[in-house]
């Protein structure tokens, strides 16, 4: 089992974030080919590549672009999602820092394909050094004529503006992101209308994740078939997986999709740390339901296998839990996060997550009852899918999985009167 270097091809090269170095290693080489193609052919190529959105939902990128209405007379916007706030996700920032020109080249490809002239890159506020690196690269690209009125000497204008978030996970949700660019609170919009029809400033808008966009130069350069050579039939290409938690070698690894999860953990990430036993794996960011070790044995890192195991590929952020993890405390940590990040507009999420948090704290303190566990479980059902966006489900889906798969641990907290110190430390 080996890493592949498509997106990360230049990551190890010194100063590849600088235009000169990047160019030497092939940056912007696809542009001649791009402008010789018709936009619809670019979209077709991307469709054929099978590239699925890397922001978490895995929606086919080319198909999404096809939803744009034709000739509305309104500008088409591209919003690049660099919010990267899903716990356990840390992939996009490598692109921002190590190879920002790959992203810019991807933006040019996408813009041309969808007929857009204005891109906003929405970057999370915490990425302080990253935003500087990205802006420096954009400035360089403007100077060199890759952005601006005449992109690569063609009669095509592209302006790219970096918009900084300021501490709100929910702004990763595509419509909250648009609201945030418009200067509002990051509160997701009800869909329909979908952003492709009425997005930023009411205009047709495509939102794609950084990694999705950064995958485009390779697809255009080498062709859809070359991209499809990696991964599986329905999950093509490579992904920047982030492996964190209780492993020997946590970090970001580019791998083709479809590899067996456990093997990846064992070989690529060095296995469970300190020689401990595996308790569970979160496969794709904190929002995805947990897998037990036996499930982790059979699952592969692709959309279909994850779905078959009743979890999700998500953002590719794999978290390994060793045998010492206090699941009840972990659930408290999770609910705390989602409660803190709820935009607060819809009743079930706003009120429900707060209730769940208070219940799990009560259980952790050893003051809970079996009825509290049942209530917690019931609240997951009562909240999920009743809301404007899926942030609430991003909390209830994993919480339900812990409750179902580790029920005795919760019961231990309500039957024994003493709560474990591991649980209390979080208060």
């Amino acid at each position, binding site marked *: 089992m080996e890493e592949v270097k498509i997106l990360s091809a230049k990551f190890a090269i010194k100063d590849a974030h600088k235009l000169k170095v990047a160019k030497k290693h092939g940056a912007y080489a696809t542009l001649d080919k791009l402008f010789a193609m018709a936009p619809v052919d670019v979209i077709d190529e991307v469709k054929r590549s099978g590239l699925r959105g890397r922001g978490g939902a895995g929606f086919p990128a080319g198909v999404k672009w096809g939803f744009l209405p034709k000739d509305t007379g309104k500008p088409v916007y591209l919003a690049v999602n660099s919010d990267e706030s899903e716990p356990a996700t840390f992939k996009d920032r490598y692109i921002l820092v190590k190879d920002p020109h790959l992203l810019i080249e991807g933006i040019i490809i996408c813009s041309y394909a969808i007929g857009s002239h204005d891109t906003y890159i929405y970057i999370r506020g915490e990425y302080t050094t990253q935003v500087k690196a990205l802006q420096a690269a954009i400035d360089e690209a403007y100077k060199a004529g890759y952005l601006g009125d005449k992109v690569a000497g063609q009669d095509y204008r592209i302006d790219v503006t970096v918009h900084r978030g300021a501490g709100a996970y929910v702004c990763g949700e595509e419509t909250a992101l648009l609201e945030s660019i418009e200067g509002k609170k990051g509160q997701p919009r009800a869909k329909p209308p979908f952003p492709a029809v009425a997005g930023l400033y009411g205009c047709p808008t495509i939102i794609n994740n950084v990694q999705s966009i950064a995958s485009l130069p390779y697809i255009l350069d080498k062709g859809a078939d070359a991209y499809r050579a990696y991964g599986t039939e329905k999950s093509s290409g490579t992904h920047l997986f982030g492996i964190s938690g209780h492993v020997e070698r946590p970090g970001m690894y580019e791998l083709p999709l479809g590899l067996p999860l456990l093997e990846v953990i064992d070989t690529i990430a060095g296995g469970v740390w300190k020689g401990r036993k595996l308790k569970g794996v979160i496969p794709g960011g904190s929002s995805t339901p947990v897998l037990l070790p036996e499930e982790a044995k059979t699952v592969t890192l692709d959309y279909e296998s994850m779905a078959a195991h009743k979890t999700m590929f998500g953002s590719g952020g794999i978290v390994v839990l060793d045998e010492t993890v206090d699941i009840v405390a972990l659930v408290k940590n999770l609910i705390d996060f989602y409660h803190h990040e709820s935009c*607060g*507009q819809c*009743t*079930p999420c*706003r*009120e429900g997550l*707060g*209730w769940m948090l208070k219940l799990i704290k009560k259980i952790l303190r050893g003051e809970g009852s079996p009825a509290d566990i049942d209530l917690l479980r019931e609240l997951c059902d009562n909240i999920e*899918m009743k809301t*404007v966006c899926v942030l609430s489900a991003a909390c209830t889906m994993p919480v339900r999985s812990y409750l179902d798969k580790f029920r005795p641990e919760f019961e231990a907290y309500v039957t024994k009167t003493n709560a474990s110190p591991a649980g209390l430390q979080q208060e």
Partner: protein
Amino acid sequence: MADMVKLFVNGVEVEVEAGKNLIDAIGAVGIEIPHLCYHPALGADGNCRMCLVGIEDGRPPLVPACKTPAMAGMKVLLDAEHIRKIQRDVMELELINHPTDCPVCDQAGECRLQDYYMSYDRRQSRMTVPQVVKGKKMAFGCGVVHDQERCVLCGRCVRFCRQITKTGELGIINRSDDARVNIFPGRPLHNRYALNVVDLCPVGAMTSADFRFQQRVWFLKKSPGVCHGCARGCSITVDHNREKEQEARIYRLRPRHNPLVNGYFICDSGRMSYKAEEEGRLNEARHGRLARSVDQALLAVAEDLAQGGKITFILSPDSSLEQMVTIRALAEKLGATLSGFSDGWIIPGDGDDFLIRDDKAANRAGLELLGIDCSRTGFTAAVEAADLVVNCNNDLGRSLSAEELGQLFQSRRLISFASHRREIDNQAEIVIPVASWSEYAGSVINCQGILQHFPRAVVRNQPPMELVELIARLGSPLQSEADCWQELARLPGLPADPATIPTEGLQLNDNEAAHDQP
């Protein structure tokens, strides 16, 4: 006529207006979909999630009714167990952080949360953990008091200030269950419609400092009325009550929905104008310096009128059409002149592009329709030529200074029929109290040429006499409401029977609509 489509609600076919959202479309045929954040004047926000309905074979199968347009063939599910469960669940979540202090809450009796709890929840609370603590009794300005804990964050008040008044004083700050409505420090509510947020608020989170703790709403009698605050003539509800052994009292005025006139709103000064119905009223008839019964005083007036000489009747632009036409008939009989002079009722520049008009009179269009001269020159000429002036409740002090009035009536006899105590009436020989607009039934025409009829709302313990009755007793040929309308029906567009005027009013012909100037 709007396009109609057929769709199914709980398997039953109904015909509804196409394109309207499901709450309104299905609501129009009498099926309620519970909702908190949606308001027809403010649009759908989609945050409360109370209105979730099922769509059979739909994708997605669950939609917010407020955001879903009615389409032909749709199979809407309301009366299904899973939908009822969602309604219960959302209600439960609405309530977990709600103080449920209904016994001390002004909204009790007209609270959506209370109503929906009864219709959709009715369960014991399962909330065993502490509630979120937020601000109470916050003075937001313009007499609006806010309770953050009662608030369900539907955002109606915020949207009202942003979309309707465009003053944007309110916001929902923070996020998660710390979200709350607030004003920016130092920039309180400052607009002429602010108190509408009290009506808009589906719960008791926005209350009026004026009405707070005055009366439980279920004791209030609700009478339809027309605001006499300006020429818009907004449709209102007069909420009044007589507590045991006490005088009947108006507790508040509220907007009454009227798509032709005022939509869902009224201005704050109109809303507070009920105070003028309660305060500064003229209660006793007087002849010379002596208090008299109304009958005695009226006898004296009749004698004065019978003496002949030149008489001028002054009409009020606030009077009802019935009053105007009765007075006109009497004047004609007596060969008296008429004037509706009331320039001072118009405050140039005071109106806005929403409801408020420069003209503070409710029925100037009526005066004009009846051909009654309102000019200052006509007024001066008529008064100067007259031996006797009969002022029928026109607050002349609005149009003329005390000095001007003093001069004018120095050497002239003045009789006043007045609902309120006014400076000028000190100069009157005879003064007789009359009913004000909340105490009589009548009809007025607003600045848009819309004719509205309103019934009597308040009956005082000792009801002041109505101007029409009084004038009839002085010998007007029009002796009854039917007489009045027979006369009025001769005017273009006016019906013969006020009972035929629709509740939202009757748009008179286009010429009348041309009155729609500031």
